[in-house]
């Protein structure tokens, strides 16, 4: 069943068409990674799905219901969509517990239990009463992920979630994120310029270029059969070694 459907989304920014009839479907529990260079409208697309911006054309459907088109627009706070940003955007005046229960409903006990559960999953339970500024970048990103997951969103959107972290931390956080998303059967759309994010986390890779999706498929299919030279070039630039990835994927397949 489709969880999210984007139907011919069009949008211009400062006179430039950044989304041009972009369509995408994401199934329930699926993790899709949207890969594209800077300025290709990836972040704008996330903002449109979250309802923070309104597209000029096309429709956004969540659970097969239109949440935004030319005639109707469901406000952000009514959509139950989780959002994680590269900047983390933790509320600096609230501690970790307060940050995580910010968007949750239920009794205080239920909220605290859910918070403990998520913090344990992300291995940061000991920071429950700490304030964001005392945490490292990786810990802050784990809190941001936990906060977005806490209200059990219909879908979670992540904008360059692993950017700004060192290599080792990126690797472990990618693995943990995928594990937790799968455990919770959470549908996710990750936006990144880094192929590695998609290769490690996603069920599907979608390549976006000039405002539309140029190729979509399982990571191994995209890597083994890049549709054009640009994708191949971008892949080599990001991962450094195409042959290595090819061998990893091939060995996995066999």
């Amino acid at each position: 069943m489709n969880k999210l459907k984007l139907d011919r989304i069009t949008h211009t920014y400062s006179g430039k068409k950044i989304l041009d009839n972009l369509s995408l479907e994401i199934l329930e529990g699926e993790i899709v990674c949207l890969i594209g260079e800077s300025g290709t409208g990836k972040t704008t697309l996330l903002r449109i799905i979250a309802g923070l911006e309104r597209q000029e054309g096309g429709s956004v459907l969540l659970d097969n219901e239109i949440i935004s088109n030319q005639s109707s627009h469901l406000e952000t706070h009514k959509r139950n969509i989780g959002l994680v940003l590269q900047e983390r955007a933790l509320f600096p005046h609230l501690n970790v517990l307060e940050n995580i229960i910010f968007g949750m409903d239920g009794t205080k006990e239920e909220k605290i239990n859910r918070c403990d559960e998520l913090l344990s999953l992300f291995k940061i339970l000991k920071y429950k009463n700490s304030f964001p500024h005392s945490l490292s970048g990786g810990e802050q990103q784990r809190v941001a992920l936990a906060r977005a997951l806490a209200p059990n969103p219909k879908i979670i959107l992540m904008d360059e979630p692993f950017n700004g972290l060192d290599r080792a931390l990126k690797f472990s956080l990618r693995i943990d994120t995928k594990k937790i998303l799968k455990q919770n059967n959470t549908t996710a759309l990750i936006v990144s310029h880094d192929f590695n994010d998609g290769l490690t986390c996603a069920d599907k890779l979608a390549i976006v270029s000039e405002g539309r999706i140029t190729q979509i498929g399982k990571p191994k299919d995209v890597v083994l059969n890049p549709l054009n030279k640009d994708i191949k070039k971008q892949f080599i630039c990001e991962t450094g070694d195409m042959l290595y990835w090819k061998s990893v994927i091939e060995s996995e397949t066999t």
Partner: protein
Amino acid sequence: MKSIIEKTLEKLPILFFTFISLIFLTPIILILTSLFQGYSDSWQHLFQTVLAEYLTNTTILVAGVSIGVFVLGVSSAWIVTTCDFKGKKIFKWALILPLAIPPYIMAYAFTGLFDSGGTMNNVVNSIFNIDENYNFFPSVRNLGGAITIFSFTLYPYVYLIAQTAFTNQSRDVFDIARTLGLSKKSTFYKLALPLARPSIIAGLMIVAMETISDFGAVEHFAIPTFTSGIFRTWFGMNDIVTAKQLAAVLFIFFLSFLLIEKYSRKKIQFNLSLTTNRELVPIKLYGLKSLLATIFCSIPILIGFLIPITQLLYWTISFNLEYFDLNFVYSAINTISLALISGIFCVSVSIIVNYLLRMKENRPLSLINKAISSGYGIPGVVLALGVLDLFSLINIFTDTMLIGSVFGLILIYSIKFYALPNSSIESGFRKINKSVDDAALSLGSTKLNLLKRIHLPMLKNSSLIALLLISIEVIKELPATLILRPFNFDTLSVSAYMFASDERMVEAAAPSIAIVIVSLIPILLLIKILDRNKNE
């Protein structure tokens, strides 16, 4: 081996700090020592009669004004920062204009407007053909009136601070909050306000201090407060020791207030650098919403600036043009000279102090700098009593008569307003990367050359802002000037007070309007510089 000159030069910073702290802190210490002198019968009289009233009135006044400035300052700052509506660009700076009108001048204008036979009552009576003795508007010479005039003259302190706080808040944080279920309206109460809380509290503290320190407005409305009580005890009961003891109590109260505020801010301190600098995108308002925003932002400017200015101008032009004679010119020159001299002195001291602290971090010296910056919270009348004591001591030991000299005024302005240039210079120095110093020193520059050729040119803007900030305050200052001015030495504020205390409101209008105009010059310059800095 180091030569004697080198050794002396090394000790220069300590000597400088000692000298500055001596002249800045001795008046305060002398006031505090009055608590150990004998207590006269006046205390019993005060306890039995007016002390409770002083405390009650002061508390009600501070509470009322805090609510008033909070509503006016925070809401206008929020609207101007987050909404796009007709006239927004003008409102952004026009909302600061009431800062040019000191509360006592607003009080003079308000009595002229709303007293029996005042302009507003006359207008209503003539429109509705009512008996000319009928008072449509209630009297303003009461606590409610005082709360109103303080709120409308002091809200810009909260407005400025809140506006900066809201502008620095990140769009990302609000976006995330929206996805977590917060509606646009509730982001203000649940996120923007708590995030800006430390800044808003700091603004409210400044307003509370200004309110408690005020003498001119409460005296004009005949409201007995703690500060006016010190004057009455001194001049009415002729008991300077009890007046000093009252001042010492007020100072201790202030100090505890400051420490509690500092402690509470420390507890809720959070690092805003966590949030990114992606500014909030203002929401475009149309139709009725845009009109309501325009009306809401017009009210503080109308009541806090335009109406009182119109009243003062009407009095001045209709009855009082002859006031602009040679005496007026002298008063204006005195006022501007005092503002400039005190300003230049304070800016120079703060540059030297902050430069020395930058060159060699030293905790005791840094604490001294904080201590000499604490004068802002002390009422002018308290400091004036301390300065008089200091001058008496100097007179005893050196036979130099400083009482009744301009030095007293410059010293008191410096003690009271040093915090303003210091904070501006401090942040100016912070903006200069320390690697710049290292680069200059490695290129063979001496430390003095570093200050002259690198720091001073880079501090030009901060110094100018510091000078303007202190000038605005000196021009408006009244109680300390009243006590310490030399014989026959009038400033604009003293002239206005003299006329107003004799209920010669029409005559008081001319110096009052002059104060507003003279204050407006640095305010407008300040707005321009701050705007330019922001755009850069």
